[in-house]
């Protein structure tokens, strides 16, 4: 590998950007996600995810494992109670041991609440960087090195773009979270499964789920892909053996992670209750998904009873997942797998219950993986996804790093993939989609042009602060008009008539998976435009 040094340089650059972003402020002193509002005023501020992570370290090192997920005199679940799966708790414990070695005040029970200092910030930031360096970054590098049929230079460019994705950097190193751990494990899973190391892949993915339950967004494609592989090998022979092996791996890894909580039934149930708080609302304060967008016209949250909301969101999610998953089970291929990951994660994000704006990162990861195949659309989506988290980032005073990293990412993508030159329908892999749309709207021939205009419209409002929204709404509103009509076309297409897609799948197996995902892009962006400009 003669170009090894360029890859090293890219990784070092990624690390430098990460660390410089982490010098900025974090989610402190502001109730950023407003999840646990204490009753009454005059209470100390609730802090943000930074305090949550610190609090988890405090809990895990000071309390016995049985009390971690239970409310008690020492563990007030109302105050950033542990609500992630056991692996997160173990990770917190590990960090807590290091923290105890450096300065026990950081994790002292009760007294350390709201602890903030420069040294502690440095420590917390370092834990994120180390976790990232150990799990996510190697996965990205390996993924890009294993890509087939492209030059070394392209591989390196691809790695650069993925490593510079601003959303993940800003949330992990600015806002403060450990998304790179769960996403990194998921990426290891994708790698393993794609290159026929199915057992290792499924093990890695189980770890991902056990780190963050949100990874369930990715679980269906994994399941369908592996099932499809088993079918392909023949359920009576090798396929069955593989299926048994996979099942054993998954069960074993889950048991291993949950071992301390399997001692009592109540323990397990309590953890599950903490992980899936169905009693929370349909969506959180500002999410760029269907429900939030729809509630601009109709306040679903207030009109419909709670369990019906749950049912509706479940049905919609399931229906939107179905076509892609069936297709993947019948024709398993690594490429199809990646596209299904995108479309499933997006379906969850758009339709499922209790979505958080940071969940867009779960969609962004698979989109990063298809960056090479559909550069224009992916770049577009990744930029929009970062934009959708802007309110959150503004609260954390991260405007400057956001703008800078977004521009950097845009330049990286633009120079490595020359995205502006590849905007014909074929290159966007939207051919089959526009053919099927043209069946219903014969005049629908201007898709690429719309997309180009949208792109400009998307980039315009970026540097403007929210208060000047009225000024920038003009061009963007003009731009999102046609896009919304495109989105309507999509839902007609997908909801009422999934069959044409399958007919085309025979003739164009590769393009097919691109199309449902292409739809989602349009709907996603139009949602965002409607959402952002009405909310602001």
């Amino acid at each position: 590998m003669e170009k090894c040094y360029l890859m090293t340089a890219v990784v070092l650059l990624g690390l430098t950007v990460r660390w410089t972003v982490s010098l900025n402020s974090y989610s402190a002193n502001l109730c950023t996600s407003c999840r646990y509002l204490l009753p009454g005023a005059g209470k100390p501020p609730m802090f943000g995810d930074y305090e949550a992570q610190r609090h988890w370290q405090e809990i895990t090192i000071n309390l016995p494992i049985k009390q971690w997920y239970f409310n008690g005199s020492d563990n007030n679940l109302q105050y950033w109670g542990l609500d992630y799966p056991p692996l997160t708790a173990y990770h917190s414990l590990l960090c807590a041991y290091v923290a105890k070695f450096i300065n026990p005040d950081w994790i002292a029970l009760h007294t350390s609440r709201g602890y903030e200092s420069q040294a502690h910030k440095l420590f917390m930031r370092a834990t994120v960087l180390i976790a990232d360096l150990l799990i996510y970054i190697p996965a990205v590098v390996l993924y890009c090195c294993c890509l087939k049929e492209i030059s070394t230079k392209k591989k390196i460019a691809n790695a650069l773009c993925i490593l510079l994705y601003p959303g993940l950097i800003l949330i992990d190193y600015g806002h403060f979270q450990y998304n790179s751990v769960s996403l990194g494990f998921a990426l290891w899973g994708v790698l393993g499964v794609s290159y026929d190391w199915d057992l290792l892949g499924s093990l890695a993915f189980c770890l991902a789920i056990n780190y963050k339950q949100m990874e369930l967004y990715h679980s269906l494609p994994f399941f369908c892909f592996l099932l499809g592989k088993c079918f392909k090998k023949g359920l009576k022979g090798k396929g069955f053996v593989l299926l048994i092996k996979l099942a054993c791996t998954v069960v074993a890894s889950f048991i291993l992670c949950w071992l301390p909580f399997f001692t009592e039934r109540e323990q397990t149930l309590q953890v599950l209750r903490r992980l899936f708080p169905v009693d929370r609302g349909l969506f959180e304060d500002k999410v760029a998904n269907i429900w939030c967008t729809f509630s601009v016209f109709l306040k679903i949250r207030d009109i419909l009873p709670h369990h019906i909301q749950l049912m509706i969101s479940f049905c919609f999610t399931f229906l939107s997942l179905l076509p892609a998953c069936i297709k993947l089970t019948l024709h398993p291929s690594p490429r199809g797998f990646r596209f299904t990951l995108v479309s499933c994660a997006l379906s969850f994000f758009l339709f499922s219950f209790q979505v958080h704006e940071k969940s867009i990162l779960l969609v962004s990861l698979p989109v990063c993986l298809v960056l090479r195949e559909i550069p224009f659309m992916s770049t577009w989506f990744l930029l929009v996804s970062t934009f959708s988290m802007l309110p959150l980032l503004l609260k954390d005073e991260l405007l400057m790093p956001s703008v800078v990293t977004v521009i950097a990412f845009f330049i990286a993508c633009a120079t490595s993939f020359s995205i502006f030159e590849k905007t014909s329908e074929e290159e966007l892999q939207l051919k089959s989609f526009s053919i099927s749309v043209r069946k219903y709207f014969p005049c629908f021939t201007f898709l690429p042009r719309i997309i180009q205009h949208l792109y400009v419209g998307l980039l315009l409002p970026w540097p403007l602060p929210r208060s000047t929204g009225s000024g920038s709404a003009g061009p963007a509103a003009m731009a999102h008009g046609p896009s919304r009509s495109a989105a309507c076309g999509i839902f007609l297409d997908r909801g009422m008539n999934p069959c044409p897609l399958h007919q085309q799948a025979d003739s164009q197996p590769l393009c097919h998976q691109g199309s449902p995902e292409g739809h989602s892009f349009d709907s996603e962006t139009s949602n965002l435009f409607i959402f952002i400009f009405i909310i602001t």
Partner: protein
Amino acid sequence: MAALGVATGGGNWFSALALGVTLLKCLLIPTYHSTDFEVHRNWLAITHSLPISQWYYEATSEWTLDYPPFFAWFEYALSHVAKYFDQEMLNVRNLNYCSSRTLLFQRFSVIFTDTLFVYAVHECCKCIDGKKAGRELTEKPKFILSVLLLWNFGLLIVDHIHFQYNGFLSGLMLLSIARLFQKRHMEGAFLFAVLLHFKHIYLYVAPAYGVYLLRSYCFTANKPDGSIRWNSFSFLRLISLGLIVFLVSALSLGPFLALNQLPQVFSRLFPFKRGLCHAYWAPNFWALYSALDKVLSVIGLELKFLDPSKIPKASMTSGLVQQFQHTVLPSVTPLATLICTLIAILPSIFCLWFKPQGPRGFLRCLILCALSSFMFGWHVHEKAILLAVLPMSLLSVGKAGDASIFLILTTTGHYSLFPLLFTAPELPIKILLMLLFTIYSISSLKTLFRKEKPLFNWMETFYLLGLGPLEVFCEFVFPFTSWKLKYPFIPLLLTSVYCAVGITYAWFKLYVSVLTDPPVGKTKKQ
């Protein structure tokens, strides 16, 4: 933004590189900044709120104005933008003032003025003759050179973390070099004259300019064997050069001459009262000299050759700029350093006069001047190594031998800048950026010269690899040992002595290569 997309969309790698590094600079805004930040804020305040007659007399702050007049005018111009950011920073009495808007303005002023540097790099890339055009973009000398200059580690940390305006000053120097390469001598001379009146440290390389312009511009022809043809001297050219230098100097110093303040200005510009070494030892000859003195004094005390009561108490590395007396070896006076510097510069000047090799020879001489004065100068800052590193980048992509010297010089020179950033949050940044730059420069130059003999011999490789353990010891091991309280200066001492060895070696090797290099005529025949 759309225009930006158009600019980069066409695979324009140069603007992508420049924009990329600009964005990195923007990310560095919240990092630590040194007292130089306050120095420049104070100068903004002085030039903005006081009449010109007070500029070089004002002494409310200890950071008095000690750069030549053009820099003062530059601060004056900046201050007219600064007032829209924060009026308070322009108050002379507002010592150590640093609001977030002040920070933003000062940082952006550095980033913005770096545009000149970017332009200069662009011009430099045009004038190097890639002797073999690589197949791929990343293997082209132009690409490598622009990365080496634009992403230079030293400039990034000195300008954008530590805080100074070296970027645009180096830009002026590179631009004038590029003009000389392009045979636009008058322009080159003008730019250098302007540069001298921005920052007088460039006086160190002035001999190279003077001799080169005299020899290769004022004399219009050579004899066939390369020696000088006396009757080809052009008075017109000499007079026009002199006129340019005179006019620029008149513009800069004229007002102060009229106010009868020249002595005061010069006393501010050349403060010989400061000590031999700067707060940190710059890795030069005097660092080795002082270290030897220290070792000898310790040995002398152990063996009872010296009387402890006679040893001066002032410790060289206590962190302040102060006078210092050597214990065993004779103490060094400013005059002695001046003589040493002149002696060190002379051979390269002779070489430039008697063995002219065109602009490339001039560039070598310029680097030797910069390095020699760095080696032997009085009160040298470790940042001054950039004066040699940046022009050396131009040479490095031309010849394997130069590339080898460049890599040793750059790596050790950059490492010696590490003590500038001593705060914990910046530790990862300096290590990551240093690794990024070093790995890139070594690997890319190795790829460029892969068909020639290896760039390093075993000794050089061993020396460069030794920087790693040194860093680990200084930053990660030493603070946890019991020596930290007793001998706090050990990391600094180790760093500067270790780097001094490398820089002396690079200086020596470059000198040897310049002196033994056959003249142009001969190489052409071969």
